[in-house]
């Protein structure tokens, strides 16, 4: 615990611009502080409309903060000035959004290679890694399909490995499995944990599903209703590797679930 946190949020606040003639818009997030250690899988849980996506947008540097700061490797990000925003902080913060946001005119392979193309990092080594990831998520054989020819789960996988392929030190995930059926969802959770166990990236994973937050995280933060603050923090005692589909029968699951349930309102 002596190592400085990789990502640190201090007193972060956000309210959206007030439209002229209206009441000042309310605070979405107010005075939020937390830190993420290197290699940690942090899950953040909160009720709908608690500013989870807003928080990740600020961490990804695509939205400005109204107050407070975000520090990455002890370096303060320029987050208050819209003209100086640096999306992704030079490819060091990856972001898997709620929607897959695949480019419809690129095939699966072209979509997954896209970050490498724009970062001018396309070479034999990165190509091999891409192929490995495509095989690992079961997209082999679908490389030349366009997004509209894939199922929702396959698009999700493509969008997930599109971020993994360039290996950013921190990956933000915004309810990436929210819109999927239960079975596909469990499968993707297992897949994600397997990929994570290989590379041990730092992950900040936002969800509104308590079971998902427990199944995946090393630590879980609970956000309050807006203005969002930390309502609770739970270190997850369940040992890895975990059985995602059977997580609810784990002896330590029920107590943790109940403790979080009380705080999520």
């Amino acid at each position, binding site marked *: 615990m002596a190592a400085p946190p990789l990502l640190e949020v201090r007193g972060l606040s956000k309210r959206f611009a007030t439209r002229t003639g209206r009441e000042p818009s309310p605070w979405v997030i107010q005075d939020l502080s937390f830190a993420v250690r290197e290699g940690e899988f942090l899950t953040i849980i909160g009720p709908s409309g608690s500013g989870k996506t807003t928080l990740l947008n600020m961490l990804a540097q695509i939205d400005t903060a109204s107050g407070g700061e975000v520090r990455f490797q002890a370096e303060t990000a320029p987050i208050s000035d819209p003209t100086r925003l640096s999306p992704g902080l030079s490819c060091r913060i990856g972001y898997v959004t709620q929607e897959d946001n695949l480019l419809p005119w690129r095939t699966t392979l072209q979509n997954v290679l896209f970050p490498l193309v724009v970062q001018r990092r396309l070479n034999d080594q990165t190509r091999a890694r891409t192929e490995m990831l495509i095989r690992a998520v079961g997209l082999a054989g679908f490389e030349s399909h366009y997004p*509209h020819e894939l199922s929702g789960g396959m698009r999700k996988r493509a969008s997930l490995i599109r971020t993994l392929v360039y290996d950013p030190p921190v990956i933000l995930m915004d309810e990436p499995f929210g819109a999927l059926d239960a079975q596909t969802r469990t*499968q993707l959770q297992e897949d994600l944990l397997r990929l994570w166990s290989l590379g041990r990236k730092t992950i900040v994973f936002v969800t509104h599903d308590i079971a998902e937050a427990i199944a995946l995280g090393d630590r879980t933060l609970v956000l309050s209703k807006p203005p969002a603050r930390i309502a609770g923090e739970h270190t997850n005692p369940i040992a890895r590797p975990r059985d995602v589909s059977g997580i609810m029968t784990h002896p330590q699951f029920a107590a943790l679930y109940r403790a979080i349930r009380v705080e999520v309102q």
Partner: protein
Amino acid sequence: MATWRQTDSPAPMRQSPAAPSLRARGDQVLVLLVLLAIWQGFSLAFGTYWAGSPWGVATRLTTGLLNGEILRHASYTLLEAVAGFLIGALPAAALPFALRRLPIVTAILDPFMVGGYGAPKLALAPLFILWFGIGIESKIALVAITVFFIVYFSALAGIRALDAKLVQMAQVMGASERDVARHIVFPGAVPYIFTGLRIAMPYSIGGAVIAELISANRGLGYLIQLGAMNFDTTGVFVALVATTCIVFLGNWSVNAVERRLLRWRPPPDLETQVGS
């Protein structure tokens, strides 16, 4: 590493491109025959002086094709249409991209563009003949200006329909402004540009024919004018049929290029593509 199990099946696979069924083709032939029969009935009732006759037109068309007369005039009109189409469409497609980062300039230009779009191009023909002479230049200019405004507004719509989330994702992944323009803005606007091109295509041929009607010594418009002056109804119809054939050819070309460039799109509804 173990391969992940496949729990979900892929979406319905690419169906064969929206080719009209044989049934639809048969029905189209049927409609054509009915139209020809009505025409034939009309000319039998009122005489070929008023309406020509399908048979007479077919004979004249064959003769004209065999002695090269029709092809000579048609190729002239086609040349005007293609040249004007390219001269009008290329800058029209490029301009909204150039102005993408300059919304104020776009806003300043807007009323002028709307005016240009709405102005009757036929009224410009005499001016263009005055400025560019009675040769091919005035026809190309009329076609180009007609096509320009149609394609400009389509391309502009394409730029405005840009999905900001795709741009943000690309920026998070390290895409520069140039990468965004090249990999996101442009491909996203291509379907809109093609909509404009498809609408503009018949106008380009129509524009060329109309310019020829006013003043020319070659081209299908000239043939129509010649036929009209000689009270040669059949001659007018022959030129009209030839013009229609060029429109079909142009439509087919635009669709062929579009199909090739827009393979990534879900197949369109079957019936809307029939006959194109």
